[in-house]
């Protein structure tokens, strides 16, 4: 998950009534036109993403050490870099940490988001609007500003969180340093990511909930269903498609958390114990100049993303064909 900023998709709403007319293509124009129109986009994609991917594949199969930095031609070493990187315990520690972090964050985010959506449905419209505005505030915060604010909230000396904890009786938190231990470090990182990501989940699920027809709820109530039954038997099954898509997106986005960790590490965290996959790549490449190793891990991350994204892409393609 990078910046949690989403521009909407009123386009998708518009798309549905119009699928019929677009299905009849124009035939009068020369067939070259669409290719010409695609050319700039394809060119910039090849340059900005295609070439880097190609470079990483090649580099990950080569010896690319200090000697190559000074101009010696690289030598082909097959899968040696992969064997070297994936044979080290360092990488697996990072992979396991990233997966654990990603799953915890994704499930907590979706859980809280669902709870918020249900809450918004249940409360008075004025309170609903207040909730929506506050969620939008959190959603709109630029990521770097958000992390900076959380560093201030959790500052060991004058941070308001430590002050509050001391006030309610946890005197052990006087001057407590949250960022110097991996566990509390990741706790704060999780708070930031959940805080930033819940708005998207909550508003998406809430939009899903509003689509449930009132007649169905009315009918259920007449048949004697209580609130708990309505929730479990009607609302949850009807928002399940939305829930599974946002969960999948959160998993994909939380697997790529890099900037938040990097920015929190500035507060003096033990770097090697708090690195996630992106940070590991950054340290290998920019820090240790081990470009072959960094390329090998990058390819692994890209493949993982493609595999995880497949169900999401398939659901979008279905919409496209429709």
């Amino acid at each position, binding site marked *: 998950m*990078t*910046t949690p900023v*989403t521009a*909407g*998709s*009123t*386009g*998708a709403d*518009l798309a549905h009534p*119009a699928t019929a007319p677009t299905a009849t293509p124009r035939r009068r124009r020369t067939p070259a036109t*669409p*290719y010409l129109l695609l050319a*700039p*986009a394809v060119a910039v994609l090849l*340059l*900005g*993403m295609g070439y*880097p*991917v190609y470079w*990483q594949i090649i580099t990950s199969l080569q010896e690319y050490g200090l000697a190559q930095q000074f101009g010696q031609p690289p030598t082909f070493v097959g899968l040696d870099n992969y064997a070297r990187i994936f044979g080290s315990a360092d990488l697996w520690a990072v992979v396991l940490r990233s997966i654990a972090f990603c799953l915890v964050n994704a499930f907590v985010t979706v859980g809280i988001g669902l709870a918020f959506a249900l*809450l918004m449905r*249940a*409360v008075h419209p004025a*309170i609903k609007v*207040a909730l*929506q*505005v*506050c969620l939008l*505030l*959190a959603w*709109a915060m*630029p*990521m*770097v500003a958000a992390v*900076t*604010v959380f*560093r*201030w909230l959790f500052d060991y000396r*004058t941070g308001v969180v430590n*002050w509050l904890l001391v006030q309610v009786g946890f005197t052990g938190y006087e001057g407590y340093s949250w960022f110097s231990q991996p566990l509390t470090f990741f706790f704060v990182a999780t708070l930031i990511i959940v805080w930033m*990501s819940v708005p*998207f989940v909550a508003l998406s699920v809430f*939009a899903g909930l509003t689509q449930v027809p009132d007649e169905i709820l009315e009918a259920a109530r007449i048949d*004697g269903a209580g609130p708990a039954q309505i929730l479990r038997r009607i609302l949850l099954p009807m928002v399940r498609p*939305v829930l599974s898509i946002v969960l999948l*997106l959160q998993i994909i986005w939380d697997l790529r958390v*890099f900037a938040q960790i990097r920015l929190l590490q*500035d507060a003096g965290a033990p770097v090697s114990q708090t690195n996630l996959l992106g940070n590991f*790549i950054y340290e*290998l490449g920019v820090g240790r100049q081990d*470009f072959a190793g960094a*390329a090998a891990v990058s390819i692994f*991350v*890209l493949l993982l*993303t493609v595999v995880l994204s497949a169900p*999401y*892409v398939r*659901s*979008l393609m279905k919409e*496209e064909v429709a």
Partner: protein
Amino acid sequence: MSALTASAVRPRTAAGRRRRASRWALGALGLVTALVWAFPVYWMMLSAVTPQAWLRATTPQFLPVHATASNFQAVLDGHSFWTALRMSLSITGVAVAAVLVFAFFAALAISRWRFRGRKGFVLAVLFVQMLPAEGLFIAQYKMLSSAQLLNTVIGVSVLYTAAIVPFTVWMLRGFVAGIPAELEEAAMVDGLSRTRAFLRITFPLLAPGLVAAGVYAFLQAWNEFTVALVALPAESAQTLPLWLRGFLAASANRGVDWGQVMAASTLIALPVIVFFMIVQGRMTSGLVSGAVKG
């Protein structure tokens, strides 16, 4: 059946009171949650207008009773903010313009024509928009450094354009598909040329879509941190997010002046928040339909 009638007929007062109580409880819960969620933003703005002496006090102030603009003044007096602002504006400007033109052309192609390779392109666009910057930035760094384009506006703009174009194509495709080609054809029957029909009929209808896509591209480019971190290593070439990080680090050397750091954060966040609030109706309307990216 009997249970149902029993519960429906039972004295209204007890059940009604219970229901009203639970409504109140839920309302209170909603209000508290809203306040908790907004608190970090409030705290940022409050600290930004609070003098350093009060921020260092043992008991924090929760209301702006000693408001001052001195923190903002201190931040704006430094040259670094203005350099970073200029850099951010240039990169965002170039990227948004390029994204809009490229994505609009591509969206036009895939929604108005059926041609060989179309499905492949759409599939590629959808996968590419999911690729994380963290899986590409080492190669992008090497690419820019060997092309002597590190620390330049054009280098980062190319990377941003490539990163933002895929989702924008997908978004605009929906808008273009929403405008029936028949409208344009009808105008041509009435005597307009194809170009004029497009400019007079289709283009105005597309304006909301282009605005939405432009806003999306702006927010992405303006807030971006990861690619900027590797592509703009020089201090003189920092964008605003990098500058904020540097500002905090510099302040940390002399025991962080949180008032100034929060003023700096507010300067970055406030325009984005205002902008976001203005366009949010557009953002929340069609979220479920799949065309989303965070």
